[in-house]
């Protein structure tokens, strides 16, 4: 009742505003209505979407006309353009790496080593002794690890691991304090032998051995981030647009709900599905290598992501930027400049 009348009241104000170009003088000032009116008032100046898009293409056309001379200037300076197109990935990392921030990170690294035969490749301590950044190689993939800080708080992730012996790996995780969702079974819909656990840091591990799966040209990735999403179907066009991703297998219900999809970016894959049951969204951090960070960053903003960090050249030789998608995942977009 009250809500309905608020809708009517608000529309009266809006109607008045659109006709007279000013808000209706309110005789009985209602705080709720007044604060909504403020928003409505600002919306009067809302730009046309078609205009925003058309001006962008205009500017792109104009920019490409003057590009010739500028491009030769920049390429001559650094040789960067060449490096970008040939080697845009940092050696040792694939196109997609989960960046897992949990505390204490040092303990988490031990977990990765003892359960998954992880090999520590790098560990950079922060001044306070915590781990600022570390990399652990697992199979033909890697996981990046950090204790995080105020800006980058704890964010456990879900990861699909391909291992040689899922039963033994599963058992090791339980010994290391993980709890079981279910033991490895041959009845998993994927057709793989597949078990699932949650470790004591809050991460999910889907531990599997491929059976009857034909690996891609570069082989199956040992480490694949697994995103449980609400409205998962919308993630596919987002990743296609922003990262030039390719959906390799999409299983949808007749209503369009994504039961499972494998998405390829560059030489790596990740998986998504519609959040369900115990497998609810876990917004996480992902590190992605792309040929052109600036372009991917721009496309991400265009596609509704918000900026965490604009593109910049990092001291470790990547051009890097950060965005947060509509699901709350952070994407660290990078291009290895090759030094």
């Amino acid at each position, binding site marked *: 009742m009250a809500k309905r009348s608020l809708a009517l009241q608000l529309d009266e104000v809006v109607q008045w505003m659109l006709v007279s170009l000013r808000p209706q003088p309110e005789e009985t000032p209602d705080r709720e209505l007044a604060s909504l009116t403020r928003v409505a008032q600002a919306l*009067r100046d809302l730009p046309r979407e078609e205009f925003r898009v058309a001006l962008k293409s205009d500017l792109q056309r104009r920019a490409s006309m003057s590009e010739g001379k500028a491009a030769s200037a920049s390429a001559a300076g650094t040789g960067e353009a060449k490096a970008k197109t040939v080697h845009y990935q940092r050696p040792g990392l694939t196109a997609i790496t989960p960046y897992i921030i949990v505390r204490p990170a040092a303990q988490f690294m031990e977990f990765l080593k003892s359960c998954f035969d992880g090999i520590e490749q790098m560990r950079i301590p922060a001044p306070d002794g915590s781990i600022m950044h570390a990399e652990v190689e697992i199979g033909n993939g890697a996981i990046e690890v950090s204790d995080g800080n105020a800006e980058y708080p704890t964010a456990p992730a879900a990861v699909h691991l391909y291992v040689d012996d899922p039963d033994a790996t599963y058992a090791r995780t339980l010994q290391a304090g993980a709890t079981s969702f279910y033991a490895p079974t041959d009845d998993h819909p994927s057709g793989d032998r597949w078990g699932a656990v949650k470790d004591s840091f809050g991460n999910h591990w889907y531990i599997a051995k491929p059976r009857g799966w034909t690996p891609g040209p570069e082989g199956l990735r040992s480490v694949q981030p697994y995103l449980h999403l609400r409205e998962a179907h919308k993630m596919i066009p987002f990743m296609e647009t922003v990262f030039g991703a390719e959906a390799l297998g999409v299983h949808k219900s007749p209503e369009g709900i994504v039961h499972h999809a494998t998405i390829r970016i560059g030489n790596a894959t990740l998986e998504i599905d519609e959040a369900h049951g115990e497998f609810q969204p876990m917004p996480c951090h992902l590190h992605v290598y792309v040929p052109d960070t600036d372009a991917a960053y721009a496309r991400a903003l265009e596609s509704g992501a918000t900026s965490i*960090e604009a593109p910049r050249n990092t001291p470790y030789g990547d051009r890097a930027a950060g965005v947060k998608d509509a699901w709350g995942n952070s994407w660290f977009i990078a291009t290895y400049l090759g030094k």
Partner: protein
Amino acid sequence: MSTRRPLRKGSAKDVDEGVRLGTEQSAGERVLVEAAQSDPAKFEVLYLLHFERVYAFVASRVRERSTAEDVTSEVFHKALASLPSYEWRGVPFVAWLLRIAANAIIDHAKRAAREFLAPDDPPDRAAAPDLQASEMRAIEYRAQLFLLVRRLPEVQKQVVYERFVEQRSIREIAQRLGKTEGAVKQLQLRAIQNLRAQMEGGHG
């Protein structure tokens, strides 16, 4: 090699803070501008970052939508053309854009004045190029709001665009969307409540 992502404080946030205060400049934005100076194709990023701000500023001073669009378009074309001569003096890029905008608005007003008004009746209102902090905050508020509209659930977004941009009546929108007028009013309320909630929280 020091840190890998994501361990450094986000400098895009610094850009936003700087814009909000109208004073600071961030290294991140400087890199963006320099990238665009050496490769004009990268101007797109600057456009995407600042479109809403420039438009909000122009629309706040120019009532007519078509004029606001003309001026906004002029501002970005001029900015793209003058980018090579843009020099870094610690002035936020957005302040540079808004200065171009303020001048474009004056030009427009002068042209209009030549047609309709006595020549010695200068349009003072648009002339102040130095923005007050309060006006800067108002621009930032609107820019943020415009961004959030694009992220509303589809049907709410549609109602907002139909109502505020196309200025259609509730009845017309109801017909176009195949809904009752009551439902459209509810959607309008839901959309605005949604926007208000997001403007209040999580954007510090």
